[in-house]
């Protein structure tokens, strides 16, 4: 099917491909001769349930040079740390993937998942859009520590999506985020929606500091964070008083 080199977008989501490693092996073989697909969707396929699936996917992506957008939502990648190790090897070598969606992958299960991602992001300079939403990263502050260490070095990620990660439960998460953004000059869009930020005043205080000092962020998404109206105004004011007049657009709804 993929000998056809006109297909640019292939959606293979929700097909239970991870149930049998031969499925991903066949996908690997198909991708090795295909150079047209730019956007591959493999969402909801339980690929992470078997490490061999990820090895096949790794081997495919190490050779493929056409895929620029890869969506791996809801594939249980976090259940086995070797999954993220293999994916990390892909990101260290592949220079073509610009948009990667790792949402809903239980990355919280083991902090080593984010460690391996950090190691990759320190080297990778092609990834522009990284979606880590719905991974409960706030469960351990090591997750955000590793992300901080990655973002201090990475220079390509422009869109970072961290929604629905329960980051608000521990203020250290926001301290690490602040430190990361002090050194990072590439992130322009930061999605922090649904992170229970409003439950802790220290989170708000740190956010204000970010808004007053960051020089690059254009849009900060803060919807569904239990932030009351007067605090929303305070955050908007903080953005207006940015040191270098970088007025960050804040989205509360």
């Amino acid at each position, binding site marked *: 099917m993929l000998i056809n080199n006109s297909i640019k977008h292939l*959606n293979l989501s*929700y097909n239970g491909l991870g149930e049998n490693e*031969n499925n991903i092996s066949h996908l690997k073989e198909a991708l090795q001769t295909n150079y047209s697909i730019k956007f591959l969707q493999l969402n909801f396929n339980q690929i992470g349930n078997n490490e061999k699936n990820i090895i096949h996917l790794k081997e495919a992506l190490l050779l493929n040079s056409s895929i620029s957008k890869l969506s791996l939502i809801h594939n249980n990648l976090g259940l086995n740390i070797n999954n993220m190790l293999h994916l990390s090897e892909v990101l260290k070598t592949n220079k073509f993937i610009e948009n990667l969606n790792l949402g809903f992958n239980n990355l919280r299960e083991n902090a080593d998942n984010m460690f391996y991602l950090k190691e990759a992001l320190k080297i990778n300079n092609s990834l522009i859009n990284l979606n880590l939403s719905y991974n409960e990263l706030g469960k351990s502050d090591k997750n955000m520590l590793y992300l901080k260490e990655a973002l201090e070095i990475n220079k390509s990620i422009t869109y970072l999506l961290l929604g629905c990660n329960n980051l608000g439960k521990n203020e250290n998460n926001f301290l690490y985020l602040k430190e990361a953004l002090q050194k990072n000059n590439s992130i322009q869009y930061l999605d922090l929606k649904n992170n229970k930020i409003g439950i802790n005043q220290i989170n708000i205080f740190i956010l204000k500091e970010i808004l007053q000092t960051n020089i690059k962020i254009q849009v900060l998404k803060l919807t569904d964070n239990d932030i009351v109206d007067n605090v929303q105004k305070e955050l908007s004011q903080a953005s207006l008083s940015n040191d270098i007049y970088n007025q960050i657009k804040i989205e509360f709804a």
Partner: protein
Amino acid sequence: MFNLIEEKLDSEYFAYYICLYLSINSIKNKKELEIDVKTFTKQNDFEFLINIISLASSIEELNLTSSDIGMNLDNMNYLTNAFSINNSIKILDLSKNYLGVDEDKMFYLKEILLINQSIQDLDISYNELGQNEKNIIYLKEALLINNSIQNLDISFNHFCENENNMQYL
């Protein structure tokens, strides 16, 4: 949206072609056509509709999702005939149509894709294609020849039902 069902369909040819003429005129400037085929009461309603589609050269997007097309082989035959004439439709949504229930439906889709070179965006998600590997073989054979399709949605098709399915990818 023009309601084709409100047209009085008559078995008399004259009335039929008058309706056809009026219908084509009424949609001649439309680019999108979304049809709920389930509201059709007679089989020749679908045939009538397909005749309109085949001649309406302005339509670029045809949405036939959830239309139970796969429940009747004649529907696929009419659709094949329409796409042998129509070359304007770029986006075709055939999702949720039971196309994979038996392989005959996908045989007709293969014929469509072999004849037609205008469809760029094809959605055949939710069609149980994975139930029978012949469905995937027909799709593969079609795509070996067809080079117009750029966006292919084959999600929600239970490919895992048969481990041979993915080898045809």
